[in-house]
């Protein structure tokens, strides 16, 4: 197992590549989910305001 992670002495380069790639993909997905959540939160605020306005 340790040998696998050592990558024949190239561990830094190989894991550096794979790690940064995974990081970039995860960050992209997280950013997108946050964008969507913000959008929905703003919408729910808006619809609450509208229904309150109707109630009053």
């Amino acid at each position: 197992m340790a040998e696998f992670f050592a990558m024949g002495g190239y561990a830094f380069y190989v894991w550096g590549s794979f790690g940064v790639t995974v990081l970039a993909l995860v960050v992209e997905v997280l950013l997108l989910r946050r964008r969507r959540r913000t959008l929905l939160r703003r919408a729910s605020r808006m619809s609450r305001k509208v229904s309150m306005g109707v109630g009053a």
Partner: protein
Amino acid sequence: MAVNWFKYSSPPAFYPLAGRLIPWFAAAAAVLALIGIYVGLVVAPTDYQQGDSYRIIFIHVPAAWMSMFIYLVMAVYAGIGLIFNTRLSGYMARALAPTGAMFTFIALWTGALWGRPTWGAWWVWDARLTSELILLFLYLGYISLYAAIDDPRRAARASGLLALIGAVNVPIIYFSVKWWNTLHQGASISLTKAPTMAATMLTGMMIMAVAAWCYTIAVALMRVRCEILEREVHSEWAAEQLAREAR
């Protein structure tokens, strides 16, 4: 069939369809990526010349392919948007750009990490790497132009035109850079040609490339859904959709 396509080219019809497709592509991307990584890191044998450092190609090559394909697809969407004046294709082009830029960055990053043990330098003015760098600039230009224009319709059309011009220029730039590189006798070993391609390596790379496609489609669909809702917030269907989902 044709009727169906036109139906889905309108944002209100496309939005739920995209929502249904996302989980499938995301799941396919995850499964394929796991298989690809297993093939690339475990099954594929160590290269006798480069040792294990060559395993970077399982990321690098698919990322480089994606960076170019995405630009091309983006330009096609932009062209459709300009010619037929459809909103959705503009949104799609916009939704692909950040992912394309990210894959370009990954290709550059892994190229540098591969170059250090192989060429002894983090950066070499190799034709492919240099073209990739210029491609990154093209992506950044597209994204900046889109962001700089306030009116969404002008933004989509102007940056779409830029994407088309860029796509026409990419081959010219690539051949210029390649020619320049051979003239100045740059690095001659290239990342893709380096190891003698064993069948397992090729399989691993292909699986990773398909995984990258699925990932790109899933992410682009997620982004286009946000884009549609943000742009069309004032239309009735989008407001209803938002209200339904916000609950």
